[in-house]
């Protein structure tokens, strides 16, 4: 049984031999990862024969991963049938898996640097709902992978047209020739730098700080207790050094995010296909992801003050997917401009027209609550604790007007708008967060009322979709219940599919 590009897909076959290398790589990394405490132990303990153990572990890891990957490779077969993909795998625990095409939600290609070197791809099939039904073929030639994808997509399309066609007298269904994919967005290096600059550097700085703290614990192990104290007293002796260190950490964070952004999103391309959107990006590992239009449940876009300056947004297409792949279910475009948002919105919400919507604000009572919970209460607690020690603690009272100002601005910027077909909102203090939702995507509606909201006739509404939730806080109760009644009526009478 040989596998070449010429083997028809309907015949049982193996993956590309490159798969052996890929599996060796993953197995090796897993083994080394689980063995690292041993390394640390022998590294710290100078009496041990470090080289000796290192050699044993290295040889063991190489041997186990090589044998394991050969077994995995030679016992993995797949082929396509009319309506399903069949996988036969395993040496001792033989598994036979049939994956019907109509269960397959997305077909993604991934390429690590090894894949790219040999010009192969990893094929990921995601099936919705049932857990543990995802499938990855580690390495396939690009042509073969494309063939499989086209085969499955074609069968899926023809299945759907035959089942949904109400007129059996129409046997000749003309499948429109696939439109050439339209490039929606391609990020230049300048765009990438803009995105890198506007990322959240504080988060990276935090990670670096944590890393340094971790190192300081190692210092104790390495130098012993006495010496360690000496070392740290020298390092932290002067304020100057601390400030310098902070600046270095921030600079490092900035550079690190910049480099990470360029690596991850290098040559990012978003294309619009017949069925939805496709994204491909990365310098070393090129990742491809697809978002079929009907799977998109919710569209969200965000910007922060720096991004606003550049006119940039981060766009999220929230998809329905199985729970296991929860991380993969959001299709994220790290940086795009208004036209791309308009296109995506048009696809998700055809004939979007701002005039169909009516804008509303949330109740201004939220400002008082916000000030109470995040301003008054913490300030009073701090004063209560420290007033016995120093009167300066009363300065904390200045915190309250600050919170009030923040809450008031935040409330003023909170806008939501309703139409017969859906809802959109926009909020944010300095940045902006906005989303749009079609009513038919709603799975359940929940009304929440805190004691305060019960007293003041208010309610918060949560719309749950298969791609995430959308909350409208502090609506007048009457409006909330009306909205609930309407959306229920809309979902129940319209027979629009949510996926």
């Amino acid at each position, binding site marked *: 049984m040989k596998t070449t590009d010429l083997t028809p897909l309907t015949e049982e076959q193996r993956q590309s031999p490159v798969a052996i290398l890929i599996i060796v790589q993953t197995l090796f990394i897993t083994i080394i990862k689980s063995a690292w405490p041993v390394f640390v132990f022998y590294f710290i303990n100078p009496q041990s024969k470090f080289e000796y153990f290192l050699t044993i572990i290295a040889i063991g890891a190489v041997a186990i991963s090589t044998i394991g990957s050969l077994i995995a490779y030679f016992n993995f077969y797949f082929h396509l049938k009319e309506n399903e993909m069949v996988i036969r795998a395993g040496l001792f625990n033989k598994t036979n898996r049939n994956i019907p095409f109509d269960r397959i939600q997305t077909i993604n290609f991934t390429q690590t640097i090894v894949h790219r070197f040999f010009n192969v791809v990893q094929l990921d099939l995601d099936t919705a709902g049932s857990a543990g039904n995802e499938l990855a073929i580690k390495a396939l030639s690009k042509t073969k992978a494309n063939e499989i994808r086209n085969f499955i997509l074609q069968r899926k399309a023809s299945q759907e047209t035959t089942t949904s066609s109400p007129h059996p007298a129409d046997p000749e269904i003309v499948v429109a020739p696939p439109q050439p994919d339209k490039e929606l967005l391609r990020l230049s290096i300048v765009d990438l730098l803009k995105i890198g600059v506007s990322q959240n550097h504080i988060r990276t700085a935090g990670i670096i700080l944590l890393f340094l703290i971790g190192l300081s614990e190692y210092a104790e192990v390495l130098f012993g207790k006495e010496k360690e104290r000496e070392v740290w007293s020298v390092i932290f002796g002067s304020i100057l050094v601390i400030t310098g260190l902070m600046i270095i950490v921030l600079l490092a964070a900035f550079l690190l995010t910049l480099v990470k952004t360029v690596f991850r999103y290098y040559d990012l391309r978003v294309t619009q296909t017949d069925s939805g959107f496709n994204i491909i990006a990365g310098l070393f590992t090129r990742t491809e992801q697809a978002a079929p239009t009907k799977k998109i449940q919710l569209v969200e876009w965000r910007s922060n003050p720096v991004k606003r300056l550049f006119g940039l947004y981060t766009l999220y297409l929230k998809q329905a997917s199985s729970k296991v792949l929860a991380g993969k279910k959001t299709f994220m475009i790290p940086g795009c401009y208004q036209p791309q948002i308009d296109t995506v919105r048009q696809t998700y919400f055809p004939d979007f027209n701002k005039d169909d919507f009516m804008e509303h604000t949330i109740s201004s009572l939220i400002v008082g609550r916000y000030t109470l919970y995040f301003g008054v209460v913490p300030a009073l607690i701090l004063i209560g604790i420290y007033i016995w020690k120093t009167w300066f603690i009363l300065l904390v009272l200045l915190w309250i007007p600050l919170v009030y100002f923040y809450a008031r601005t935040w409330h003023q910027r909170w806008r939501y708008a309703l139409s017969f077909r859906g809802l959109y909102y926009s909020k944010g203090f300095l940045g902006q967060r906005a989303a749009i939702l079609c009513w038919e995507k709603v799975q359940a509606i929940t009304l929440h009322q805190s004691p305060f909201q019960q007293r003041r006739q208010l309610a918060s509404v949560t719309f749950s*979709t298969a791609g995430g939730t959308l909350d409208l806080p502090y609506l007048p109760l009457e409006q909330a219940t009306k909205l609930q009644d309407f959306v229920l*009526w809309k979902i129940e009478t319209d027979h629009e599919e949510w996926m």
Partner: protein
Amino acid sequence: MLFENPSIPITSLPDLSEHSLESLSPAYLKVSQISTILFFSILIAILSGIYYFAEFSIPYLVQWAVPAAWLFLFLFSLWHTWRNFKVQGFLVREHDLTYRTGVFFRKTIVIPYNRVQHCEVRQGPIERQFNLRRLEVFTAGGESSDLSIPGLGGERAEQLKTFVIEKTGQHENN
């Protein structure tokens, strides 16, 4: 007015708040109080064990504060289950299922039948003594949108499950 669109008769839409909810079987109050008592009994047993076998001296303040807190929380939980029982209720309509719960933080969740993925009927050991079951309804919306109605007496849970599945099936065929 929610939106300007004269073709939607907002006022004539089916109004959820018009209906009063069906309360849970009275036996369910007993079930939840028994489980509260059980939980707090186990807690006090563990606490007594610590007090009895402790090899370190427990500060005087802690010696009295912990049992006092236990008593307060125990009484509060009993009161809370009783109050919550009065709030808890469900409503079966033509096209959707509603459940309400929560004394302080009230939550009302509505799931239309045409969004239901699957249903389950469950029974815990205490519930079995009182012949009660709970109906769990799942949607594709994840945990935030799943609904669980406890305290359904006798055949009510199975009936309701059959009803919901039937309704879901009807929508699928349409």
